[in-house]
């Protein structure tokens, strides 16, 4: 038999660098994963690990992979494997539902494996995804809050008209070449050979980069976090409250340039505290909700005048207020809702906690203000829906 022919092609690093052929498909896959993250956002933010303020931190998000469905056999199909020589009936060789167990390589891909993988997402990216389709309720804003100051420009597509500095030379040249090729035939027929080597740019060739400017409200916002730190607020309740405040703060930050945050803890008396104390210091005693609101009003009076600041206040409590304080609390809440852009009350009652406890939800039902919203948080999964409900207050009316 004659020898087969063969050739060898040497490895060329330049080729290898250029041919990242899966880049486009990876990008597209990445976009799909992003969609998946968005769909599962409430599960993801229920994870404790993301609460914290370091924006560049990379968090690992466990995701069920994007499945590629086909008709496949289910669980009741027996498989075949190879043993070490002493296999006996009844011997356990693996677990059901574990990928890769029991099947040879020839079977790869024909059964649904559990496609778990972790994706790295920076917190900033996650926040971006979360808030992509949320908007602040379009509230009545006072004039001073409306100054548009910050511009950021983003490149977005190409246009046929524009200013000279944005001319994209590369695209323009390409366009000319395309036109030249397209008109080559006519050219030769009509104007003879001498025109051939001159082919000037035409207005239609010009391509300009298009830049869109984004206006941000130059304005200051303050997030006032009021939390009940009385004895009945345990760690779990504080954790739920904290998650909510975290979301609120992050969201406000994406919409305003300067965001300040104020923490007010209260039991029967209220005081402004640091973040550390706010979340970790346990106090005891009873609860006067009105004290927290009055403190907030006081701080607003002193430092954050409503004509200059967009004020977002949120109060978390387990609703265990002294009955005698309720009228006062209601009055203070009404006052507070007048100065705030948005004011919310979140009642945190983990499932299984004592339901006979009194609830402020009933009391606040009597408060009729368009920018006031109450939410009930029972589990960590409720945080995201209630957060959305809080922001959706204005829209629903």
């Amino acid at each position, binding site marked *: *038999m004659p*020898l*087969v*022919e*063969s*050739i*060898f*092609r040497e*490895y060329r690093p330049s080729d*290898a660098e250029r041919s*990242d*052929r*899966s880049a*486009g*498909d*990876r990008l*597209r*896959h*990445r*976009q*799909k994963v992003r969609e998946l993250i968005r769909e599962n956002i409430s599960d993801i933010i229920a994870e404790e690990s993301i609460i914290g303020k370091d924006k560049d931190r990379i968090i690992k998000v466990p995701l069920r*992979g*994007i*499945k*590629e*469905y*086909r*008709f*496949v*056999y*289910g*669980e*009741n*199909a*027996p*498989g*075949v*494997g*190879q*043993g*070490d*020589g002493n*296999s*006996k009936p*009844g011997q356990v*060789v*693996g*677990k*059901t539902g574990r990928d*890769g*167990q*029991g*099947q*040879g*390589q*020839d*079977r790869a891909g024909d*059964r*649904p494996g559990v496609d778990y*993988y972790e994706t790295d997402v920076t917190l900033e990216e996650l926040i971006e995804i979360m808030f992509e389709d949320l908007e602040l309720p379009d509230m009545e804003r006072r004039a001073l809050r409306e100054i548009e100051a910050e511009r950021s420009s983003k490149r977005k597509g190409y246009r046929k008209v524009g200013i000279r500095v944005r001319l994209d030379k590369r695209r323009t040249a390409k366009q000319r070449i395309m036109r030249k090729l397209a008109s080559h035939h006519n050219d030769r027929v009509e104007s003879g050979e001498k025109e051939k080597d001159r082919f000037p740019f035409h207005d239609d060739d010009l391509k300009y980069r298009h830049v869109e400017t984004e206006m941000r409200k130059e304005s200051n916002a303050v997030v006032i976090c009021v939390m009940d730190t009385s004895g009945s607020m345990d760690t779990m309740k504080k954790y739920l409250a904290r998650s909510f405040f975290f979301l609120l703060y992050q969201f406000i930050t994406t919409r305003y340039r300067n965001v300040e945050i104020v923490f007010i803890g209260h039991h029967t008396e209220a005081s402004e505290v640091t973040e550390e104390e706010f979340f970790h210091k346990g106090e005891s005693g009873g609860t006067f909700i009105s004290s927290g609101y009055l403190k907030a009003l006081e701080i607003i009076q002193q430092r954050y005048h409503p004509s200059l600041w967009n004020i977002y206040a949120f109060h978390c409590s387990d609703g265990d207020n002294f009955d005698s304080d309720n009228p006062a609390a209601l009055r203070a809440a009404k006052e507070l809702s007048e100065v705030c852009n948005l004011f919310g009350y979140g009642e945190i009652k983990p499932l299984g906690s004592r339901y006979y406890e009194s609830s402020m939800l009933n009391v606040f039902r009597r408060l009729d203000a368009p920018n006031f919203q109450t939410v009930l948080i029972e589990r960590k999964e409720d945080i995201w829906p209630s957060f959305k409900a809080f922001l959706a207050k204005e829209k629903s009316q």
Partner: protein
Amino acid sequence: MANYSLQDLVEWDERIREKVAEFGLDCYPQEFELCDHNGMLGYMAYSGMPSHYPHWSYGKSYEKLKTLYDHGVSGLPYEMVINSNPALAYLMRDNTLLLQVLTIAHVYGHNDFFKRNFTYSSTHAEYTIELFKAHALRVRRYVEDPSIGIEKVEHILDAAHALSLQRRRNLAIRKLTQAEQVQRALETARPPDDPFKRIHQARPYVEPNIRKVPYEPEEDVLLFIRDHNPFLQEWEKDILTIVDEESKYFIPMIETKIMNEGWASYWHKRILESLGLEQGLRLEFIVRHNQVVRPIPGQLNPYHLGLRIWEDLHRRYTNPTPEEIKRDGPPNKTGDEKIFEAREVERDVSFVRRYLTEDLMRDMDIFQYEPRGEDLVVSKVSDEEGWRAVKENLLRNIGMATIPVIKIEDADFGQNRTLYVKHYHDGRDLHLEYAEKTLAYLYRLWGRECVLETTVQGKRSLLCFNDRGFSAKALK
């Protein structure tokens, strides 16, 4: 780069090709390309094709391969060969000299198999590269077309991928057209001329319902939809064609995995043993070879299974034991003749059925396992009473037998253009979540209600998908 040059490889290749000719392997011209691990990952994600149409699932498979590779869970294959003429093979440049030599020999084994095994005769190896390139061009054009765009293309591709393996398996049998099926039905419906018709009772003439579409149950789901859904646009039909052509190309690979890998391993072993390697290379060869063909407990390594069967087959025709002669008679062919014949006319299912003997099964300790509660439990082993059952089950777990058979029974069910498809149940139930989602894809392509008949835990059931979504009901 390792301690050898391209020239070394060329020289080794020359020696290997001499052996290839000497042993009588019949190969396409061969091209080798050296690539790094990123290149290899890229090729793997796209089944080795130098050009391929874009789809996010390839990005996913790249990410997955890369993750596994980066975490050291799985290594990369030493090579990758494409069934094309000339055959195209990628070699990892970081491999040692011995690995390259072993790989080159292995590649010629695959090459011969691609050229000579009957299942590959439908793949048109000389057009492979061009075909995939043309597909890529067409799909890219649809993606770039402003009136179509990536979203719509993906919409169709996702659905087509889900159904791509629901097609005819045995490509060596010619498919009858609808007209031919009807013709045949009409002919068989007419009673044959009976010389004794005076004493026989005449068989009544039953008029076949020739209007039925498809006349006989149809397995080529994508092509059928392409030809029978009038609301599909031309580009959508083209995408269905493309996806179907690609799976047609890949079916022989699925059908001959064990034979093919076994064959290549068998030949790299024989070739390297005949090259007279010096001691150092020889030791490395033994180590590497055993890594590739080692049995993996609890699984079936196709390299191992294939190699064992080929070796056993060769031995039985060269050097049979007295019992074997007593049982099967003396061999009528030489071992080489026998294996060359088998590599031409068999595919995995027939190969394993015919040549995996009881002794070999026992020797390899092949068992069957079933889920019991949380655990997978060995239910049968290859002993005297169990081996047949184990083998039957093995046969259902290789090649295209791992894909459920789904056929289109009626495209106008209830005179309502409902697509009625039937799962030919063989004791294995469908995975219901997957069936539901895939049915949704079928609906996406068909555009009207789709009904799937299947058996769930012994009960005949109908799964429906229509504009109101999914529903299921038990039959009778």
